């Protein structure tokens, strides 16, 4: 009993301390947001400062692309000898995790490669941490070089409440496209031709399966690849405008639609029929890319970025967009702008940062980057890509989709928590833990919760 009395007293002492500490600090967390307006249109483009200084950039480019960035940085430093470019390279997950912390400080990185959409760029814009680029875009003519579609995914109203319109907060001239790679040898062996409708595609899957080949090389322990598998099917079942509006948060849309249920049903059906690589739930994306490059699997549904793994001038692989449901329909694909570059609001050298962005999005940079599988979006880039290579397939497919206005932005941009929600829900769907109906309800819950909080 005495023990208890003592204990209670101790607790009450702690409580007092806690209360004192708490009242001492009870102020609203987060600093007041000041949204910087766009800097005036610079009269001179390029770096005007002459004092030596350092530009810091946070990016997520690795492998071949990373090496080309290093080279471009060196060239930039040669062009402006007083500038030192410092790259902080973190992977996709780390960047997602840490960028928000880093950019909100007094000495943020000058340039950041933040993903578009609500989870990343949207949060930064809302907090006033990115600089509107409109005047730079005007000065450098960025808005003339790429189509409005590419710019729209980096546009926000300055208060960060509307996605897809308003000021420009990021810029890139490199594009991405998600489609179907195929192994030419296997396709030939199976006596198949390129499918032109969704049904033909499914037929090809069945044939491959029967022949003992892995129809779709796929690994989903990392999660993001599942979003692309689902998205690629959904792009065919649901209308383009619906998908685009859904992501931009327009017109009070719901995720719980028959089209989405249909896409979920199809993906479950494919799992059932064994069209995906056995053991996909436990395999890593990079392993699957490696295996596909080595000749395993007829198809692989993923983005242009694996071209560098397959070998840009490889003729053993080809690429096509997921064919439409109806013959003669338009093949819709996920993709569009690659990771854009943005300028931190706290940057001390915004003009130089803009010059850097211009450099990294120049035709020269594009020429160096295209062989890695990046898709040039700027008009007038001349790249000599040998036809018949996987790279030319990718670039042509992207051009077709772009011309058809059939490119849908990445779905995980739709709400701040959408990426996590989608990854988990698709893993559960593909393991038959939930039905297609439960799947869409689960996602709709996240979607509607966010949309209603915006109003």
């Amino acid at each position, binding site marked *: 009993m005495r023990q208890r009395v003592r204990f209670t007293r101790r607790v009450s002492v702690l409580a007092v301390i*806690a209360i004192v*500490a708490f009242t001492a600090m009870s102020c609203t967390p987060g600093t007041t947001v000041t949204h910087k307006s766009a800097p005036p249109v610079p009269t001179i483009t390029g770096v005007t400062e002459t004092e030596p200084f350092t530009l810091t950039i946070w990016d997520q480019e690795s492998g071949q692309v990373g090496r080309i960035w290093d080279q471009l940085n060196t060239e930039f430093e040669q062009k402006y000898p007083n500038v030192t470019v410092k790259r902080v390279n973190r992977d996709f997950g780390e960047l997602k995790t840490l960028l*928000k912390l880093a950019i*909100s400080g007094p000495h943020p990185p000058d340039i950041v490669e933040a993903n578009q959409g609500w989870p990343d760029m949207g949060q930064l814009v809302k*907090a006033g941490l990115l600089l509107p680029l409109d005047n730079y875009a005007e000065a450098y003519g960025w808005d003339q070089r790429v189509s409005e579609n590419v710019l729209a995914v980096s546009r926000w109203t300055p208060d960060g409440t509307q996605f897809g319109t308003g000021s420009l907060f990021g810029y890139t001239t490199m594009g991405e496209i998600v489609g179907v790679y195929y192994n030419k040898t296997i396709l030939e062996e199976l006596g198949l031709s390129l499918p032109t409708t969704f049904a033909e595609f499914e037929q090809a899957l069945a044939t491959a399966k029967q022949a003992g080949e892995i129809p779709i090389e796929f690994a989903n322990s990392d999660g993001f690849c599942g979003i692309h598998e689902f998205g690629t099917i959904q792009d065919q079942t649901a209308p383009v405008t619906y998908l685009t509006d859904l992501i931009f948060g327009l017109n009070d849309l719901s995720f719980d639609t028959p089209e989405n249920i249909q896409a979920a049903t199809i993906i479950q059906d494919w799992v059932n029929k064994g069209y995906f690589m056995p053991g996909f*739930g436990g395999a890593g994306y990079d392993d699957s890319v490696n295996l596909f490059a*080595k000749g395993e699997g007829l198809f692989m549904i993923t983005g242009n970025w694996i071209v560098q793994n397959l070998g840009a001038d490889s003729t053993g692989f080809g690429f096509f967009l997921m064919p439409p449901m109806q013959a003669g329909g338009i093949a819709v694909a996920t993709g569009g702008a690659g990771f854009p570059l943005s300028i931190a609001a706290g940057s001390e050298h915004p003009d130089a940062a803009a010059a850097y962005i211009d450099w990294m999005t120049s035709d020269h940079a594009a020429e160096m980057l295209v062989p890695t599988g990046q898709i040039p979006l700027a008009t007038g880039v001349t790249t000599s890509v040998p036809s018949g290579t996987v790279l030319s397939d990718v670039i042509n497919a992207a051009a077709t989709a772009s011309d058809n206005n059939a490119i849908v932005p990445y779905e995980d941009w739709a709400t701040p*928590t959408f990426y996590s929600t989608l990854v988990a829900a698709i893993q559960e769907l593909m393991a038959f833990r939930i039905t297609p109906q439960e799947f869409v309800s689960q996602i709709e819950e996240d979607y509607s919760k966010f949309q209603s909080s915006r109003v």
Partner: protein
Amino acid sequence: MQQEPEIAAAVAVGSRRKGRRKPEFLPGESRRIGYLYVAPAFIIYAAFNLFQLGQGVNISFYEWDGLTPGTWVGLANYREFFTEPAIRETYIHVLELMVFYALAPIAIGLSLAVMLSRIRIRGLTFFRMLLFLPMVITDIVTAVAWTWIYATGGGVAGHPEGPLATVLKALGLGRLVPADGWLGNFHTALPAVGVFGMWGGFGFSLILFLAGIMKIPSSLYEAARVDGANVWHELRAVTLPGLRYELQVVLVLSVIGTLGTFDEIYVLTQGGPGTETSVPAWQIWSRLFNTGQVGSAAALGLIMMVIVFAVTYALNRLMERGASD
């Protein structure tokens, strides 16, 4: 998040310390010098831990994304704990993990210790060292090996197949091998994480039990045998009471360790597949950094702290009551 077992033991034991007498000063003893000794540690600890805990309490009353000014929501973040199934699920997972982190190591450690204690072991130091190694090497390193162990390659030729699958297939138990690998399968992911964590910690309990058993006077066993006790009686009448304190340390420590599980999840599964291996600490981390729910994360962190404290306290009370019977 980094719940060290030894730290957990400290919590366990710390909370059971009896309160000391009211301070009474000795002749010629300075009444203030104690503060001087404690001050350096306390200042750095208060400034870089306690103070932030206070700030964390404050944050927990806001809906805050970590960037823009937060909105005061009162206890709403705390209410989520009771209403969100996703959070409830994490605690269910933690309960399942208890089997691997608390029950199994105690059962295995105890039976091994009992068997091993019957002879003098030559080279015990060497074996101890081997058994302790998994504990001192960071999960970041050991997880690499365990992903290999758990790989099954989906049974496709040319895919990496881990030794676990190979052995099971050789034994004709191939149907037990999940195609998605033990970490990718919804049914096996959590147990697989559990086995990984168990591997990292079982040496500690085994060594503790071995040391404890060796301290039990052999006369007690002899007396029991004279009284006609069989192995089971011996265990109940001599070994378990003799190991009471070791049991308490291992139990409390492993239960706290389980509640705070994070590293294993971070390095092995990131909460997947689905949310199958999501545990409270992971959920908090994910809210903090993946989905920008900083206020909610703070509230859940504080709730977790209270739960850890309550469980520790309750376990210690329970063990002590058991001991006094």
